[in-house]
């Protein structure tokens, strides 16, 4: 143990262990990570186990964390139950997928177009527009909901898919991250393309978009996360146009008898954004490396 006392010999820094790290410190780091990791992951594991519990285990006392006889009954119940309601469960799924898809594709397309112009050129208004985006990063959708309701109702978007899809296109965080990432690609690439006679539209689509793939994948994740969890809220009244979270709310409002189906719905809700993140994690980390806000 005593030999771990580190002294740096000039010019010889060992690979692997950093010289200024103590063993006690490392143990502390692992301890904290495992302890809090358990806290963070526990509810999710509980949710998954709950969704696989047969009815008698759900109401067992004392409740167990881990399922003993796993079953997919809750999932089939969910579809059966919601198949009988006047808005079938599949309709909620369709609504959510539809709104998520259109909202996300439009967002990526428009945000990357705008970000391209702001990132690669200086022109009157360009700095102002970007600082505006940075400022609005701090306004969450919960706070803008009420004035948005008024604007949406003036546009007659209330109670249509558009009320969810179109505002999603203007999300500031996706724009911000794409623009920051574009700043890191060299301007010479674009100049070279120009010399070869390519027009702006072509450069954007054929050169810039493929390079910034990590950035728009990141914008996609944030967009999916927001839209997948949007049931329509105050903007959509018609039950047949609402998304999954609304269905989840309906099921849990059904009380004790529907708890199994509710547990299944919770898992369906959370699994999609988590899977999307797992598939794109390395791209996201790459993008977030340029997420800093400069003074």
């Amino acid at each position, binding site marked *: 143990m005593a030999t771990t006392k580190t002294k740096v010999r000039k010019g010889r820094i060992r690979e692997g262990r950093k010289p200024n790290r103590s063993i006690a410190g490392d143990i502390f780091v692992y301890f904290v990570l495992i302890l809090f990791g358990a806290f*963070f992951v526990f509810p999710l594991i509980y949710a998954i186990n709950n969704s696989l519990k047969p009815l008698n285990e759900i109401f067992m006392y004392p409740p167990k964390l881990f399922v003993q006889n796993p079953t997919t009954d809750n999932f089939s119940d969910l579809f059966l139950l919601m198949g009988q309601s006047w808005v079938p469960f599949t309709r909620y799924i369709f609504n959510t997928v539809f709104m998520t898809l259109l909202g996300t594709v439009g967002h990526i397309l428009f945000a990357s177009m705008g970000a391209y112009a702001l990132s690669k050129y200086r022109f009157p208004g360009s700095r102002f527009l970007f600082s505006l985006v940075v400022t609005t990063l701090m306004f969450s959708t919960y706070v803008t909901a009420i004035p948005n309701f*008024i604007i949406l109702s003036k546009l007659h978007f209330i109670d249509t898919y558009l009320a969810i899809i179109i505002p999603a296109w203007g999300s500031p965080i996706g724009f911000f991250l794409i623009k920051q990432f574009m700043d890191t690609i060299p301007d010479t690439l674009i100049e070279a393309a120009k010399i070869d006679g390519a027009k702006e539209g072509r450069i954007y689509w054929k050169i810039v978009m493929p390079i910034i793939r990590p950035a728009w994948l990141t914008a996609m994740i944030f967009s999916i996360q927001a839209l997948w969890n949007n049931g329509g809220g105050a903007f959509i009244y018609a039950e047949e146009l609402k998304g999954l979270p609304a269905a989840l709310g309906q099921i849990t409002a059904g009380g004790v008898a529907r708890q199994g189906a509710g547990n299944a719905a919770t898992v369906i809700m959370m699994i999609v954004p988590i899977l999307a993140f797992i598939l794109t994690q390395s791209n996201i980390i790459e993008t977030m490396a340029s997420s800093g806000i400069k003074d």
Partner: protein
Amino acid sequence: MSFAGYKRKKLNQLKWTLKDAKRHSTLYLFLLPYFLVFTLFTVAPVVVSLVLSFTYYNVFEAPRFHGLTNYINLLLADDIFLTAVKNTFLLAVITGPIGYLASFMFAWFIHELPRYVRAIAVLVFYAPSIAGQAFIIWSLIFSGDSKGYLNSILVETGIMNAPILWLTDTRYMMPVVIIVVLWMSLGAGFLSFVAGLNTVDAAQYEAGYVDGIKNRWQELWYITLPNMKGMLMFGAVMAITQSFGVGDVTQQLCGMPSTDYAVHTAVNHLVDYGTLRFEMGYASAIATILFLSMFLCNKAVQSLLRRVGQ
């Protein structure tokens, strides 16, 4: 490209600007779709709520100018709003800084892990914030009857002899909400820190060892943090946005209104007046106050962060 040092008559400048703008006309076409939507649904709401906050407006009739009545009512006559402000600030003061520091600390610790473990660790800590509505699961954990997971554990092990109504007893509601909000607080800021730590140049650390940086704390303060100021700022913005915007969690876990308004937040109050009572002027005044507090808080944090590493 820029006009720096170019001081002539304003008219001349304007001409230049217009010419410059014309030269870049294709670029404005690129900007148009995004900024149209962005202006309508992100910028305009701030302006709209500022204007409407001085009016009486119920959506069905045209808004009537109301002067400062909404603000006066909010601050002097609306006890529930004052409760909401108190709760919002309590939540922001606790979950904002703790969530922010936790985001950094976990990102920093994870960075020390071997590469292949890192990806899993990031997923574990980030999953709750991306899982969205999954926080509903906490309502089973904190369920008030004896079948609630926490209650059953505490009763079985003999720590308590009767179940606690975690979500309806005013003594426990706020701590429960704080736990759940913190559970979800490792969001975009956390990812930014994870990524930012990778970007610090290894040569700087090596120079640091030679210059006698003794432990990881000194390394953090003198090398890592100053290199990550941009990410620290981004993380702060995210933390402030989240901690002031708590509303969904309180509504889903404790109901609306919650018992004695014990966890009623400004966002809950806003939703109450805006979507249930259609008093848009009044709701706009609440939104304006929220915008203002978030903005000022951001400015304050920004000036604090400038001192990092000095």
